[in-house]
């Protein structure tokens, strides 16, 4: 099937070829996005200039969740088809996803200070992202803790899959918990509905983050994959 037909060598070549394109795309999108977000877009009528953190924060949070879905999906593929590429994809995505989650938390915290007057508030979204960070850390820690590499990969894959199943339940429970104590005035970070002049820079930054994630992830995957194929290449070269 698809998994079996994914030749590691072809994948490596593909990764090598798209690398410059992803790099250029990220650079351009970030260039345009940052200018758009920081200079061209209007300040918010309530938050003023500090709304601009949204353009850094929201894409980070979005990528954080997306990376976890990637992690879980690849882990499931690995468990079912034992394709080592799937596991490598998952392992590469984990630290990147964790970094984006931490970035989302930090930028969200910095955003909270001018908007809500506090660095942290226990609302549904922030709490969910925090839990997501713990899920990432648990995955990374488990992979490192188990000594046998093959076991480590598969145990971590199980954790990722069960974590992904639990994630919507966690989010639901945190949302439910949040509705029980509706705070008096919680400024919704993206306002009641987003104006087109704000939507555009947000979308550009989203695309920029997406391209950048793929760029870093592809490079990480190459870094994992290439050494594994290297000795086979040598064998091929010495074959008479």
């Amino acid at each position, binding site marked *: 099937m698809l998994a079996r037909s994914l030749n590691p060598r072809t994948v490596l070549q593909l990764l090598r070829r798209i690398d410059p394109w992803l790099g250029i795309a990220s650079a351009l999108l970030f260039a345009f996005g940052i200018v758009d977000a920081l200079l061209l877009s209007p300040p918010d009528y309530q938050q003023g200039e500090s709304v601009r953190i949204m353009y850094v924060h929201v894409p980070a949070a979005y990528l954080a969740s997306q990376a976890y879905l990637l992690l879980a999906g690849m882990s499931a593929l690995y468990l079912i088809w034992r394709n080592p590429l799937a596991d490598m994809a998952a392992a590469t995505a984990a630290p990147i996803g964790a970094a984006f989650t931490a970035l989302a938390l930090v930028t969200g915290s910095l955003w909270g200070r001018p908007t809500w007057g506090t660095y942290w508030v226990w609302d549904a979204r922030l709490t969910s992202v925090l839990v997501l960070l713990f899920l990432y850390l648990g995955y990374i820690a488990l992979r490192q803790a188990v000594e046998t590499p093959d076991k480590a990969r598969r145990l971590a894959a199980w954790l990722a899959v069960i974590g992904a199943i639990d994630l919507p339940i*966690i989010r639901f429970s945190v949302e439910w918990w949040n509705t029980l104590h509706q705070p008096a005035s919680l400024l919704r970070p993206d306002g009641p509905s987003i104006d087109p002049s704000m939507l555009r820079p947000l979308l550009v930054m989203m695309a920029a983050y997406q391209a950048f994630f793929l760029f870093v992830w592809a490079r990480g995957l190459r870094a994992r994959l290439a050494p594994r194929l290297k000795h086979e290449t040598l064998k091929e070269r010495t074959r008479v």
Partner: protein
Amino acid sequence: MTRAFFAIVLRDLRLHATSGGGLLLAPGFFALVATLFPLALNPAPATLRLIAPAVVWIGGLLAVLISLERIFGEDIEDGSLDAMALGLLPLALVALAKALGHLVAFGVPLLVTAPLIALAYQLDTATTGKLLLSLLLGLPALTLIGLFAAALTAGLKRAGALIALIVVPLELPVLIFGVWSVAAPAGGGQTGLIYLALITLGALILLPAAVGAVLRLVLE
């Protein structure tokens, strides 16, 4: 098959009772945690009544947490898990039997200690009843999720903190629904109990099989 199942349950009960602190470990720890809060906060009855559901649930969660290492304990090293894997019962049922053993050994003492804590926290009987019901529904979920985490880290040395890091995020919904089924403002409590029951049922259906698969992995 049933005899094999209960043989494992009884074996685990005997092991839990005779080693590592025995059956008093979990309720003892539970009571200890419950003692910390009035000392660290203002022990005014109103405050106590407010925090009681949270203290009981957090204490219960922590008590289950510290006893998780004992589920598989020596089973990997002394080969008994291998023996069980080769035996009559599928590993999923072995996992379920271990969960039941753990629940009876640690969950039941917690259920027995909880009303005493509730008393110490000046809770009225109706709320205590709700609290016990939430624990009754939630402890199996905590045990099953904990079993999964214990299986993942089975055979690892000094895996205590790792188990905690893995299991607590997964158990958060149980905690949330458990506490707020007791403490919720009008109407919220009932839905909380229903969600709690749903989670326990889901865990019961899904997790033993998952744990079985993980155990097979660990034994390779």
